[in-house]
């Protein structure tokens, strides 16, 4: 892009062509006041606050709408500009109420600040200020004060250009302009809260924060949202060790300045009654545990942990290291996961995992950061539903499609909200992703003149041949493609097939290919990188690479592949696994199996759960250890774009930090590494994890840093198997952002989003089942029954059923067999 040089207040500045004068001024520290202009939303030209003088132009110009031009001479000071600024501020304040003393925006209000700096000393307004509605609910979480509104249209432009649902609009005309929704309905969507951050006055405020604290009394902690794998940057405002509010903290590489409503209002769990604050022993399981010592009631957590880890050691010695296992957490920090895998490998086992699905660390192509979506001309979503799973990715994709010329392709078994932005949506039958992905890879290989046969069966997927051809052609002719896939939504070994597909795409000479592994969990990528895996050490080092393992982890490090989560649970059921340690995970609800999981966990000699909130699984544990968790903990996480960022402590929990607790246990087992601070753990990670070599706390800094590529040997998926449902329907458990779980509990500010169970059926299946919209059906499978309301909307192809997980209580994962095999369910009208 060509550059333009201009002069602003006598200072020369060179900026890319197309830059607005207001942004160019920032480069040379010239402050041009604005209300309506927002860098991410684009120019509006409403408020007229940014009037500047431009040489050779007869009238003052708005700096926010004007592109820079070569040799332009801009003056932001002088009588003419200053009179205009005073005039505009006088108009702006004319009917603005003087309720600053009770306004939540006070202290961080652009209207106050601009008036202070540029405004008239007094007002000449002698009439009654216009009265308007004060403090009306715009939604259950946002309050609107129409008297304070200065009609800058930032929020409505946000709704139109960023969130793009156009739910928040300007109604009426002229002085009667007002921000509102259709028919006074609540402004309620996944991204509504951002209008609070961008409102330049106190018109849109956070209902939860109203009158709670003055902004200047808050302690603001720069940290990360812990609610999904995007890891949006947030400011966690606290006062007297209490969470007051959460705001977006712009990071272009991650969130582009926005957060979703779950990020803003979904951290109330820090105040939850269900928080675990002390170690305890439950009276569950066998009354006389074979290998279990007396556990002191009310022991300090550190002491309890030391005792428990010794028992694990003893069990491993008694029954062999295969008899113990660890289910880690895709929500834990890198430091916690790193130390935990170290601990269990020190105990001699590779029975370490964190997920109920198959996936390998690393990628055969570039691991794209999130902002690569904007520079890619094709984004291919595979089994991914960003709107529900990784909401801010949804905004980024919409931005790319509507503003950057990116074309969106979708290969999925269900219709998603982003489909309407897609140039091409290809839908495969639930459970047939293996063939769908392989068919795409084969098609591309054919185009390359390679005869690869993965023996895909397109007929099984239900995808018409010409659709697949179009998809192949779109991918083949892309210049830069970003593949976004959700391994957690792929069945069997399909994630490995995606990697094989990526290898094929990367062979097309004209295509630059990268991918984003988009599992929804907060630190899913970090958990993979940190080696919470039965077959990989941290940094994607396979257990088979004994030489490297010995070099990094010592002579004793186990090199035999361990059990996956589902295998561990199966072995627990059969009695072969004696002791299981679960860190911040709730297999009873989140893993397939349902009652089978309960049965398996009950059959253990010893179940230890280290968690921050009470769950169905903690109820089954013999020992419960308190985990600090987001808000209280500190460390790093690696987001879906491979960016390592710092999560910082905002509140004191009174519970030892997880990394500290694990390091105490490590010491107990004889590990000599000194982890005095969490940064020391990161230093150890840098030493031992390929891809993280250069990382340290300083480099991570405020905005994070991309790790090096974690590479992994070529994946080799197994052979395809056909399947037949015998009249049953194949189940797809979909995500719902506002599921009623432990994070969003009954007291959540977002409880108005909770839903009851729905079953999405294809028209043809609904027809043959004789059910219609609104009917209740009973879904049964794996010995579990679940009632749901029918939605006939062709969300999936015939032969399948989509049931979003709407709550923990719903128990939808119980419909799936513990072995993770395809779930065929029976539907009956109630």
């Amino acid at each position, binding site marked *: 892009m060509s550059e333009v040089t201009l002069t602003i207040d006598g200072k020369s500045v060179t900026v890319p062509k197309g830059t607005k004068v207001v942004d160019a001024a920032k480069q040379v520290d010239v402050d041009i006041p604005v209300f309506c202009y927002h860098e991410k939303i684009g*120019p509006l*030209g*409403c*408020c*007229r*606050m940014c*009037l500047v003088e431009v040489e050779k132009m*007869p*009238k*003052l110009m708005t700096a926010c*709408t004007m592109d820079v031009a070569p040799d332009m001479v801009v003056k932001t000071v002088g009588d003419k500009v200053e*009179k*205009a600024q*005073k*005039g*505009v501020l*006088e*108009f*702006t304040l*004319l*009917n603005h109420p003087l309720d600053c003393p009770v306004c939540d925006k006070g202290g961080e209000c652009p209207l106050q600040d601009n008036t202070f700096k540029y405004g008239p000393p007094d007002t*000449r*307004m*002698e*009439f009654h200020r216009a009265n308007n509605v004060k403090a009306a609910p715009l939604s259950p979480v946002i309050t609107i004060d129409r008297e304070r509104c*200065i*009609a800058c*249209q930032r929020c409505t432009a946000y709704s139109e250009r960023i969130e793009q649902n156009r739910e928040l609009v*300007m109604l*009426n*005309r*002229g*002085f*009667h*302009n007002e921000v509102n929704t259709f028919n006074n309905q609540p402004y309620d969507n996944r991204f509504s809260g951002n209008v609070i951050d961008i409102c330049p006055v106190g018109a849109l405020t956070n209902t939860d924060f109203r009158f709670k604290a003055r902004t200047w009394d808050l302690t603001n902690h720069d940290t990360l949202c812990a609610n999904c794998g995007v890891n949006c940057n947030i400011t966690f405002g606290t006062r007297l060790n209490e969470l007051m509010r959460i705001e977006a903290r712009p990071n272009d590489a991650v969130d582009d300045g926005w957060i979703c409503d779950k990020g803003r209002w979904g951290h109330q769990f820090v105040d939850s009654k269900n928080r675990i604050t002390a170690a305890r022993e439950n009276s569950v399981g066998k009354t006389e545990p074979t290998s279990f010592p007396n556990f002191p009631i009310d022991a300090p957590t550190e002491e309890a942990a030391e005792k428990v880890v010794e028992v694990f050691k003893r069990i491993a010695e008694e029954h062999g290291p295969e008899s113990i296992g660890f289910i880690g957490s895709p929500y834990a920090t890198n430091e916690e996961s790193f130390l935990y895998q170290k601990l269990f490998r020190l105990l001699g086992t590779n029975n370490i995992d964190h997920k109920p699905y198959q996936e390998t660390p690393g990628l055969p192509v570039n691991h794209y950061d999130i902002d690569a979506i904007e520079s890619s001309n094709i984004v291919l979503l595979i089994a991914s539903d960003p709107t529900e799973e990784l909401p801010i990715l949804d905004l980024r994709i919409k931005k790319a499609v509507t503003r950057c010329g990116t074309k969106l392709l979708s290969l999925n078994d269900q219709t998603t909200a982003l489909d309407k932005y897609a140039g091409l949506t290809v839908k495969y039958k639930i459970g047939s992703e293996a063939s769908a992905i392989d068919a795409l890879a084969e098609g591309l290989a054919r185009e390359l003149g390679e005869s690869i046969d993965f023996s895909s069966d397109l007929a099984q997927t239900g995808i018409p041949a010409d659709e697949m051809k179009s998809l192949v052609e779109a991918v083949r002719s892309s210049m830069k493609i970003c593949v976004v896939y959700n391994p957690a939504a792929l069945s069997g070994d399909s994630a490995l097939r995606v990697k094989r597909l990526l290898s094929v795409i990367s062979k097309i000479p004209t295509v630059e290919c990268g991918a984003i592994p988009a599992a929804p969990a907060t630190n899913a990528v970090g958990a993979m990188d940190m080696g919470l895996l039965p077959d990989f050490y941290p940094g994607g080092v396979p257990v088979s690479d004994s030489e490297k393992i010995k070099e990094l982890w010592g002579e004793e490090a186990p090199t035999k592949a361990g059990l996956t989560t589902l295998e561990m649970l199966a072995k627990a059921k059969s009695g072969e696994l004696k002791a299981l340690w679960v860190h911040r995970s709730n297999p009873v609800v989140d893993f397939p199996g349902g009652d089978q999981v309960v049965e398996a966990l009950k059959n253990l000699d010893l179940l230890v759960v280290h968690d921050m909130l009470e769950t169905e699984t903690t109820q089954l544990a013999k020992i419960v250890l308190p985990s600090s968790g987001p808000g209280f903990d500190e460390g790093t996480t690696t987001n879906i774009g491979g960016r390592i960022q710092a999560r910082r402590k905002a509140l004191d929990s009174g519970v030892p930090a997880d990394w500290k607790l694990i390091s105490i246990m490590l010491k107990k087992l004889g590990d000599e590494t000194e982890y005095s601070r969490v940064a020391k753990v990161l230093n150890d990670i840098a030493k031992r994890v390929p891809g993280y070599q250069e990382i340290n706390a300083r480099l991570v800094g405020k905005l994070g840093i991309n790790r090096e590529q974690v590479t992994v040997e070529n994946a080799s998926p197994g052979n395809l198997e056909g399947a037949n449902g015998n009249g049953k329907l194949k189940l797809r458990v979909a995500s719902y952002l506002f599921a009623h779980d432990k994070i969003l509990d009954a007291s959540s500010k977002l409880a108005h989003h909770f839903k009851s169970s729905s079953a999405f059926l294809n028209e043809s299946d609904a027809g043959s089942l004789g059910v219609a919209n609104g009917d209740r059906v009973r879904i049964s499978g794996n010995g579990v029954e679940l009632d749901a309301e029918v939605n006939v909307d062709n969300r999936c192809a015939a032969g399948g059923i989509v049931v979003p997980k709407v709550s923990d209580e719903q128990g939808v994962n119980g419909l799936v067999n513990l072995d993770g095999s395809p779930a065929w369910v029976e539907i009956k009208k109630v």
Partner: protein
Amino acid sequence: MTQILFKDINKEGLRTMKVYEELGGYQSLKKAFAQKPEEIVEAVKASGLRGRGGAGFPTGLKWSFLAKDVFPRYLCCNADESEPGTCKDRELLLKNPHLLIEGMILCSYACRIETGYIYMRGEFHDLSFIMDKALDEARAKGYLGKNILGSGFDLDIYTHLGAGAYICGEESALLNSLEGGRGEPRMKPPFPAVEGLYSKPTVINNVETLCVVPYIVNEGAESYAALGTEKSKGTKLVSVSGHVKKPGNYEIELGTPTSELIYNLAGGIQNDNKLKAFIPGGSSVPMLPASKVDTPYDYESLAEAGTMLGSGALIVIDDSINIVEATLRLISFYMHESCGKCTPCREGTRWLHQIVERIMQQKGKLEYITRLEDICDNMSFKTFCPLADACVAPVVSSIKHFRADYEEYFKNIPAGAAS
């Protein structure tokens, strides 16, 4: 006086194809199709025709600004006639719809446009039926549609109705409205000639402007340019209204003295009162006192006198009213019509209204008069579109020429009564 637009305006049946053709209608098409499109643009440039909607921008030049080689392009005829005092386009649409169609065909041919819209204000619903009927007749005759008269040129024209918003007469607001949006003006640049309707190059011309084009093609640019003054060429429709005996639309050669319009064509002042003031170009231009009544009615002379020709609406005010009454009515209009997007306009029009109203209630302060001027200064040229400037025009000019009328309201205030 030479009549171009109003030559046959009162001929019975003029709005039918039959009569229109008998009077020589649509003859220009063959002439035009025999020329290259660029030649028509050049002819319109040479004729000196300027936009008759209000801004007075040279029409041919506007056409030549269209983004090169970008298609499709659109023509929007601005038939949103809403400027208080103006009703000339309505008479053309009502009585001579085919003249507009002919003009639009010529413009479209010259600018390589294949789709035209006539954006009519919503209140012209009945006129849209007349227009639709004329368009149907033109289609039936092959003047619209594919391969018009074997020229290889395709064009269709549709009517589109607004729904009550003065601001939609502003060309970029008109485009937003035509696209199904709120009639808020757009940022410029990009100008409509580059990115207009549906982000494509677009010509927007007033009804009267387009109606002149057939004459230029038929009679030649020179014969049009021979009319009027050196810089203000041709004729102009002027709507004379207010305190005159014979209000009406009159076609004059530009440069005709304003007094001729008022005293001769419009029959002089009602009740033989004295002329007090006149607004020469629609409510958005500054008013002038009676002393300026001999000002030639053309762009330059009126500008020299401190006002504008605008849309050609001459509003005549006699000495029976206080000028502040008329001023308040106009402020009220702009307050009502402000789209509300720009702060100075949204807030300023209302504030001006409050102050003038207070003055008229005899509750004002003398300093309000200078305050009005200062508020006007803070409004003018500070907004997106000229609506705020239009509101300021009557206020500033009324204070300038009729300060005594304002002072009238302070005369009988008992001491200490001012609030």
